[in-house]
């Protein structure tokens, strides 16, 4: 546990000392702000954060791998992975420490982006339920996307590969409903079950929202279901485990 904290603390310090995290946060604020404004500027708009959530889950497909791409790839490039792997640390401590650092960063960004919740309360009368469930869902969703990004970062010493592979996996999980819609029966159902949550129809400003059949839809509506929570948590766990396995496999090369 102490090693996890040590690793996480170091990575958080590195985030704050590099321009990357600031650029990414600024982009996140801008994009979520845009979607929020677009969703509430209509005369009949409801006072909700659905627009914000749609923008956030969409942008995280690219933002999360961008946040994590450095974490393991750079250790391999600098050769510092050899120091980590010859220190009395277990691989899972390295992986969990780095994951937590990225998770803390993304939670900070989410908190920063919540200034408009205040706006909602001032000018409208938002439902507390969907607001809280939406944020809980967003945190779970963020964790899952970061785990995928971290896994991608472990695959090579090239950060760009980490970014592309990470966003690629997340995109695949996002457009999986296009595929399942063209299939029938069990396969279609199974594929549907993997839908990550975001929807690429997010740019269609009339139909703000997240993928209808995806795991995020209920959170956005104010419904918290065990299936959705379990989906995001297991996605996180599986990809963290895969990352650990990749690091362990490094030893055998």
């Amino acid at each position, binding site marked *: 546990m102490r090693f996890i904290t040590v690793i996480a603390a*170091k990575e958080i310090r590195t985030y704050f000392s590099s321009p990357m995290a600031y650029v990414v946060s600024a982009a996140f604020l801008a994009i979520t702000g845009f979607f929020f404004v677009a969703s509430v500027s209509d005369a009949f708009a409801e006072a909700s954060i659905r627009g914000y959530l749609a923008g956030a889950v969409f942008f995280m497909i690219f933002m999360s791998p961008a946040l994590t791409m450095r974490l393991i790839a750079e250790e391999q490039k600098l050769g510092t992975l*050899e120091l980590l792997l010859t220190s009395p640390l277990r691989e899972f401590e390295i992986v969990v420490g780095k994951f937590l650092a990225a998770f803390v960063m993304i939670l900070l960004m989410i908190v920063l982006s919540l200034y408009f919740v205040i706006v909602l309360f001032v000018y409208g009368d938002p439902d507390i339920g969907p607001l809280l469930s939406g944020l809980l869902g967003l945190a779970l969703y963020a964790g899952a996307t970061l785990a995928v990004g971290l896994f991608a970062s472990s695959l090579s010493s090239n950060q760009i590969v980490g970014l592309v592979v990470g966003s690629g996996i997340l995109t695949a999980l996002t457009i999986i409903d296009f595929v399942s819609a063209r299939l029938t029966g069990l396969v279609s159902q199974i594929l549907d079950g993997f839908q990550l949550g975001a929807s690429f129809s997010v740019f269609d400003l009339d139909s703000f929202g997240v993928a209808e059949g995806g795991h995020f839809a209920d959170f956005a509506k104010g419904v918290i279901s065990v299936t959705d929570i379990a989906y995001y948590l297991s996605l996180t766990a599986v990809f963290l485990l895969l990352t650990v396995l990749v690091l362990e496999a490094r030893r055998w090369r």
Partner: protein
Amino acid sequence: MIKIEHMSKSYGPYPAVIDISFEVLKGEIVGFLGPNGAGKTTTMRVVTGFTPPTSGDVTVSGYDVVSHSLDVRRHIGYLPETVPLYVDMTVTDYLRYMGEIRGMNRNWVKERLPKVIDMVRLGEYRNTLVGRLSKGYRQRTGIAQAILHEPDVLVMDEPTIGIDPIQVVETRELISDLGQEHTMLLSSHILPEVSAICKRVLVINDGRIVADDQPEALSAKLQHAERIEISVRGAEAPAFINAIRGLSVVIDARSDQRVSVVQRAAREKFAPFIVDARPNVQAAEKIARTVIDNGWGLTNLTPLPMTLEEIFLELTTEEDLGE
């Protein structure tokens, strides 16, 4: 402290180290010598728990590197070949972090850090970004992280590679000092370095250990010829060489090529020569008499030990002939 028994390590089908066995006792400084691709780094990576051996047993401080990897890693300080550093941290931050992931608590790091920075003479650079350090100072930072947690065993992979001659001398001194209180395995392909620092040398070639001895003993064992450095006044080189080659005990005589042309010109009157003679036949005496009989002035006559370069060539070429 380090015990390797019949260890082999293959990368896929390719064997990098083949059935090596050796032991490094407490307090020993052992040099690990071999050309590029001999298997030095591979062996060190097995010893430090970075990669498991394909077969054989390796223990460090009594702990098996496979079944008790974490214990091994707790007792070892390692300077990898590439000197891995986080370039965007300051020297102090980097070392503190390294200490913490080695399992040191805050107080221990706080107490130990200034001492280590002093020891490797990094004082002026303690707040410099590691990425801005010169190669020699990066090397020192690497050495500092290896000794920070007071490990029982130090493993250093080519610690002086790529640094300028002045810093090489300083780094070697530093390593020699560390050797006073550490058990150490040090690899190199710069041969005089090993003979300067180490009391014992392991020579590895093509994944096999071809010699294990003291530097001097190796030299004596392999000395098929006695080599003599000789300077004479008033002799023309060809005349001198002919006269000496005429002696039955002499195998070969030549001008000393080790000094530069300029130096040779300056020492023209005292032309330096190298003579290889048969061992144990009082060759020096006979050469001296010949010089004097010819009316030249004998200004220097010194028997030379064989250099490790030559030992190395000899060992590895013998190996080749044997195959």
